Structures are given as C-alpha cells and as structure tokens.
C-alpha cells in the first residue's frame, strides 16, 4: 500500500517538517508509519467489498489491502512498481493462506488494465490521483474507486470517512480520510416518461458533471417547472425527489431508477402526505 512514490513523499515530508530533528531518521529509512490497519478496514468497508468483487489495488506495497479484500472473499490484484514489495506481499498472502485470491504484479500502475475491476483502491499522491482520473472515469458505471487521504480534484467523492489516526505522522494532521467514488452512468440529456396513472407525460432535462446531476422536471398540464428537491446519481442508480402540482394537486414524487444506455427504469413513489402508492416508470433519452 505504501508505494515507492509515497515512501519518497514520506521521506520528503519528514525532512521538511522535522529538519530540526533530522537525527530521528538518520538511519536513512522511511519514518515508522504506524500501520493504519483501521484505515485499511475503512477502505474495505466503504467499498462494501464482498465475494462478487474483483479488486485492483494500485500501489499495493506490502499487500495488506489486497489480502484484506481476499479475506472478504473478493479476488484481488495488487500492482506495485517495486518488485521487492511484490515479493513481500506475495509472502504475506501465502502466510495468510490467500494465494488463490490475492495476487500481485510488478508494473507501472498507469499500464495496468483496470477494465475488469469492480473496485479500484489506491493510496498514492494527489497528482497521481489526478493523472489516473481520466482512466478511472472510463470504468464501467457502478465501479467503486477508493482512495486513502487524497481526493480527485473537482470530482467530489460520493462518500467520505474521516477518522482520527493520531499516530500517523504524515498526511492530514492526525486524521485520515477515506474517499469513495462510484463511477456514474451518463444521464445527460432530455428524458421523457409516460406515466398514465400519474400526470401523463413527464420530462426531465438532466445536466451532469461527474456524478452531480441537476434536473429540471415538467409534467403535462403544468406549465411551470416542478421543484426538484434533491437528486443523486450513484453508479447506475438515479434518484430524484420532485414536488409540485400534478393534475391540479400538490404531490411528492420520489423517482428511483436505473440508467442503462438510453433508458431509465424504476419506480416512483407518489404521496400527498396522506396516501402514497408506487408506480413503475420508464424514461427514454431523446437525442
């Protein structure tokens, strides 16, 4: 997990922040980084890794994320540029009895084919994350990306855990962050749904940047836009909470659906505060 790049960064940080006490590191090694097992645990947890997953860890270091993912039943591959770390990781995987599911390869992480992954994990450096970003965004919608400490610039995480790690001498001043991104479907454009039981023709105009969507919604018989209170695009799953006059009466509509190509299908929960019902809906994208 601690890649060579990170190791040099640790040395650099140690050198910068402790230049007055450089004696502490004068054995020339990386400063003792307390094994952030709890951070590894949060990374596996935030991605909800299970037996169906195919995990790729970029910068796998001593292999602990890969072994942790394998222990949760996933098949996991660690990539590290340092062959000696790959050897070490293989040794640890063997000691844990995980050689079947925990494998390692020595290569440059930018050369790694990520296409089969359902989860990509990393503990790199901010600029490396940014350099990887275009490649990550081409992954299949729904793929989870987990990063320790560093974010992805203006691509905000879907979920973040911050925990106190007072012994960790590098990073965020005694705290660690674990970020989760879920590769979003492309939901851009104008979508039309016909819901005869509730309002008739619905239109959604969706603008999207990364997973952030902003939605304008109209329904037959109401010339004004409805109020879209909240939206979420999480992988292929879209949710839109829409309120306004439908058929002359105030309703809440909670649309939930799955985006697949030019179709969204799901169900909408409609409620006026007293009664509610669930209606299936399908929308198609008008190009």
């Amino acid at each position: 997990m601690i890649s060579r790049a990170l190791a040099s960064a640790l040395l650099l940080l140690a050198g910068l922040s402790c230049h007055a006490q450089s004696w502490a590191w004068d054995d020339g090694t990386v400063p003792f980084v307390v094994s952030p097992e709890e951070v590894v645990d949060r990374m596996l947890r935030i991605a909800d890794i299970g037996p169906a997953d195919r995990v790729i860890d970029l910068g796998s270091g001593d292999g602990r994320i890969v072994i942790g993912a394998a222990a949760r039943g996933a098949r996991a591959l660690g990539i590290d540029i340092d062959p000696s770390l790959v050897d070490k990781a293989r040794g640890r995987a063997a000691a844990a009895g995980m050689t079947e599911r925990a494998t390692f390869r020595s290569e440059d992480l930018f050369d790694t084919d990520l296409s089969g992954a359902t989860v990509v994990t990393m503990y790199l450096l901010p600029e490396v994350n940014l350099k990887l970003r275009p490649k990550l965004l081409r992954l299949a919608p729904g793929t989870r990306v987990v990063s320790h400490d560093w974010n992805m610039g203006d691509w905000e995480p879907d979920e973040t855990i911050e925990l106190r790690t007072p012994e960790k001498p590098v990073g965020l001043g005694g705290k660690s962050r674990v970020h989760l991104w879920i590769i979003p479907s492309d939901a851009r454009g104008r979508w039309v749904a016909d819901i005869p039981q509730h309002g008739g023709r619905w239109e959604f105009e969706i603008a999207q940047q990364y997973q952030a969507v902003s939605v304008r919604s109209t329904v037959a018989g109401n010339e004004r836009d409805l109020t879209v209170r909240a939206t979420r695009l999480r992988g292929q799953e879209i949710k839109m909470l829409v309120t306004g006059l439908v058929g002359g009466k105030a309703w809440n509509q909670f649309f939930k659906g799955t985006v697949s190509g030019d179709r969204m299908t799901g169900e909408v929960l409609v409620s006026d505060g007293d009664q509610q019902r669930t209606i299936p809906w399908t929308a198609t994208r008008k190009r």
Partner: protein
Amino acid sequence: MTAAMINSFFRRAACALVIGLVSLPGQAQDDNFTPFVISGDEVVLRMLRMAEVGPGDFLIDLGSGDGRIPIIAARRFGARGFGVDLDPPLVDLARRNAIRDGVADKVSFEVKDLFETDLTRASVVAFYLLPDVAMQLRPKLLKELRPGTRIVAHDYNLGDWEADEWTSIRVPDKPVAPVGISQVFLWIVPGDARGRWTSDFGGQRVVFDIDQKFQLLKARVTEQGAKTVVGDGSGPPLQVRAAGLRGEQVSIVVAGRLAGRDGVHHLTGRIQGNHIEGEILTGTRAPERSAWKAVRQ
C-alpha cells in the same frame, strides 16, 4: 430495506416537507420538542457499521421514533438494546415494528424522557437530536457511559468534543436540513489519561506528562536524570511525536533513545486505574516488540 419502511419514511418525509421544513432547530426548541424525522436506512446502516455494532452490544437509542435503529441493530448485527421516545404512539409503532421484524426478544421501547434514561448499560448510544439537545445531553454521556462506549449521531455533533470518526453521504430522499446530505459522527467515550506517568526502560526512567481534553492528548516526555552535556553519547532529548486516546487505549509515539535503542517508538497500552500495560514497537521496517508499563503518580 422493506417497502413498508420506505413507505413509512416517505409518509413521514412528506409530513416533514409540509411541517418539517419550517421546524428550524430554534423553533423546535421553543416548546422543548424534538421533531420526529426518520434516519433513512442507508444512514442507519452507516451509523451501525461505524459503531461496529455486534452481537455483544447493548444499544440505547435516544429518540427512537419508529424504532428502526435498535431493530436494524438487532436484525442485521445481533445486538440487543432499547429505545426511548416521548411520543406514545411512536413507541407503540416501534414495538409493533420489532414484533413484525422478529426481534421483540432483543429490543424494547419505552415512553421516557431521554434525560431521565439510565445509560449505564449501554455499549453503544445512538441519537438524532437537534444540536442544543445534543449539547445538553453531553455531560450525561460523559458521566454515565463507560470508557470505550461508542456514541453515534446523525447530522448534529457535540460541539467542541470532536468526533473520532465522521462520514458524509448523499441521501436525496432526506427532506430536512441539511437537505440531501447526511453526516454521521462517532465518538468513543475517553478514559482518563491525565497526569504524570512514569515508566522504567531497563533503568532509564522516563516521565510522561499528559494533558487531556476529551480524547485529545497533549503529552510531554522527559528523562529523569538525563545527562544534557552535548557529546556524551546520550543523543538529543526524547520527543513526543503524537499521542492519542481511544476509550482506555492510549498511544504515544516517541522519538529518540529508549532502552538503548534509537529511533521511533510506538507505545500503546490500556489504562486501568493508575496503571498502563501495553507494548512498544520500535523501528521501521521490522519493528521490535517489547513490553511497556507506566504508573500514574
């Protein structure tokens, strides 16, 4: 997540849209009333996972509403516990939900003021309360809960008692402020690490002076009888690089020479009264392990 729960959430959410959006914290406090807003199941799961709730746990939910936090804790994680709420119809609903979900033998619900609830049995406390109420509750939490007890809260924090862990998630179906996003906080009730602790490292006497605010420690380390003459081979003075407290588990990172070994030493141990027992890891690539004991004066 059952359809009934979604429906229930949505019905409540719809009510909240009508009345809840104007129930700003200040107004809600005026009549000493905490509005009923359900934590969505996604958020409840985050809360329970963050607290690492398991079969050995006893969870108390303060303001339990329809009961979903204790019920999910029992159903998914095997915990036991109870919830209290001021609203009798909600307590009835929670009891019915517990029976429906087959966990009535594990969780119970009671009409009770949360400030009059005995918390001493809890290994986990959960709440979703307005900030003022949470702050009023804080002294009670610190007084009644054992060190190591986990506290999880939805959205509102405990002022200057910073959380040990925090998470945020986008939840579009959340109708109350902050709309569309939920935060979950975890605190571990800290033990008492204050004071002057001494350790003996093979004849080298070392003193740790520890100040504490909640779980935050400020530690200083000094060596008793250390020679300060430059060039005598004893090296520079010991330094604390970091210190932390999680329940009764204290950890201190010390740089310098301890027990004849130079480098960075990671001391961890459990506080029991005026004693700490634990271990030291020294070194970087292949840390050496040795025992650590400290006594409070």
